C-alpha cells in the first residue's frame, strides 16, 4: 500500500537526515528544558507552586478563576497547580511517546521512513512553535499590554518534564498523534475525496474531539493549560481561538506535508526540498499567528459585548 508520492531517497541520505534533524530537535529540547526549569525568569515562566506570584496574569484574570469554587481556589493557592510532580509528568511523556511510536510505525509502513520522520518532525516543529508564538505573544505583547490584550490574553502549560521552547514535549507529540490519526481516518472513510477535503475532515475530526477534551483538561482538577482572560468569545468555557487553532494547524500541516513536501523535493531534490518544507512551516507559523490576530480583532468588532456558548449563566 505504498503511495505514489513517496519520497525516494537513498538510505545514506535518510541516515544523515535523521542524525541532523533529530539531533537539532534534541538540542533545542535540552536547551528549552534547561531554560524553563532552571532559568524561568528569562521567559517569565509563571510559578507552579506560588500562584500569588503571577504578575503578568494574576489568577483573577484567568478563565479558570471563574470556574473554581472557594475551596478549589484555596487549594490551588496553598498547594499550587495539580499534576506537576515528576511522576505524573513522566506518565504524560511516556503515554505520548507510546502513541508516537504507534503512529510513526504505521506511517513508516504506509509511506516511507523519511515521510514518517518528516511528519513527526514537521508537525512537532509546526505546532510546538505555533503554541510558543501564541504563549509568548500573549505573555509579552498582548497580555503584556503592548497591543490589544482582548485578542487573547495569554495562556501557558504548567505541566511538562521536557520542553520545546515554551511548549511541553508531550503536547507536541500529542499533536503528531492527533494530526496523523485524524487525517488517516479521513483517508480511510473518504478515499475518493481530494486532499483539501480530507484535510478539512481530518481537522474537523480533531476539533470535535477537543470540544470535550479542552473543558475537561482545563478544569481545576487538571489544569493542563491555563487561559488568561482576553478572548471575547467563549465556547464551552474555552476561548474560541483555541478551536480555530486546532482545526487550522492540522488542516494546513497535512496540506504542507502531502502536497508541498513532495513538490519541493521533486523540484529541488531531497536535501534542499526538505529545507524548503521546513521554511514553509516557519512561514506558515507567522501567517497562522497573523490570521488569528486579525480574526480576533474582527470578532471584537462583531461581538463587542462578547459571546459565550452556552451563556455564562449556565456556569460553563
Amino acid at each position, binding site marked *: 500500500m505504498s503511495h505514489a508520492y513517496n519520497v525516494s531517497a537513498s538510505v545514506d541520505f535518510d541516515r544523515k537526515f535523521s542524525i541532523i534533524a533529530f539531533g537539532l530537535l534534541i538540542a533545542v529540547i535540552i536547551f528549552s528544558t534547561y531554560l524553563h526549569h532552571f532559568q524561568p525568569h528569562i521567559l517569565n515562566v509563571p510559578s507552579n507552586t506560588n500562584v500569588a506570584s503571577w504578575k503578568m496574569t494574576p489568577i483573577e484574570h484567568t478563565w479558570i478563576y471563574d470556574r473554581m469554587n472557594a475551596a478549589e481556589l484555596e487549594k490551588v493557592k496553598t498547594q499550587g497547580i495539580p499534576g506537576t510532580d515528576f511522576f505524573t509528568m513522566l506518565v504524560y511523556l511516556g503515554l505520548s511517546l507510546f*502513541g508516537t511510536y504507534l*503512529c510513526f510505525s*504505521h506511517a513508516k*509502513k504506509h509511506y516511507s521512513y523519511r515521510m514518517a520522520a518528516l511528519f513527526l518532525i514537521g508537525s512537532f516543529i509546526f505546532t510546538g512553535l505555533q503554541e510558543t508564538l501564541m504563549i509568548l505573544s500573549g505573555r509579552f505583547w498582548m497580555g503584556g499590554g503592548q497591543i490589544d490584550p482582548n485578542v487573547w490574553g495569554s495562556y501557558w502549560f504548567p505541566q511538562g518534564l521536557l520542553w520545546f521552547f515554551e511548549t511541553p514535549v508531550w503536547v507536541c507529540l500529542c499533536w503528531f*498523534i492527533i494530526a*496523523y*490519526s485524524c487525517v488517516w*481516518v479521513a483517508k*480511510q472513510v473518504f478515499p475518493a475525496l481530494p486532499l483539501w477535503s480530507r484535510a478539512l475532515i481530518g481537522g474537523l475530526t480533531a476539533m470535535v474531539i477537543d470540544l*470535550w477534551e479542552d473543558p475537561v483538561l482545563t478544569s481545576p482538577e487538571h489544569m493542563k493549560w491555563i487561559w488568561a482572560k482576553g478572548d471575547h468569545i467563549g465556547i464551552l468555557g474555552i476561548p474560541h481561538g483555541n478551536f480555530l487553532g486546532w482545526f487550522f494547524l492540522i488542516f494546513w500541516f497535512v496540506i504542507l506535508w502531502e502536497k508541498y513536501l513532495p513538490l519541493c523535493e521533486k523540484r529541488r531534490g531531497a536535501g534542499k526540498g526538505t529545507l524548503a518544507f521546513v521554511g514553509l512551516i516557519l512561514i506558515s507559523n507567522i501567517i497562522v499567528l497573523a490570521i488569528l490576530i486579525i480574526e480576533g480583532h474582527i470578532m471584537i468588532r462583531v461581538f463587542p459585548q462578547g459571546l459565550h456558548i452556552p451563556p455564562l449563566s449556565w456556569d460553563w
Partner: protein
Amino acid sequence: MWSKIWKNRVEFYPYASIYLFWFLGSFVSSLRVQNRPGIVALGLITIPSILLITIATIKTYRKLPGELRHSGVCDADDVG
C-alpha cells in the same frame, strides 16, 4: 478475528492511539472533574468523530487479507 487483527496490528495503530487519547484524555479525565455537572455527558459531542474513527477501523479490518491466505491457500480473488 483477533489473530487476524494481531497479525496486522500495525494497520490499527492510528486508531488505537486516537482511541487511547480520547479515552484517557477526555473520558477518564472527565470522571475526575467535580464541580461541573454535565461534563461527562458533554462527551456526546464527540460522537461524530468517534463514529468516523470506528468506521475507519471497520473498513481497515474488512480490507485485511483473509486468514486462508496466511496458510498458503489462495482466495478466490487471487485467481486470475
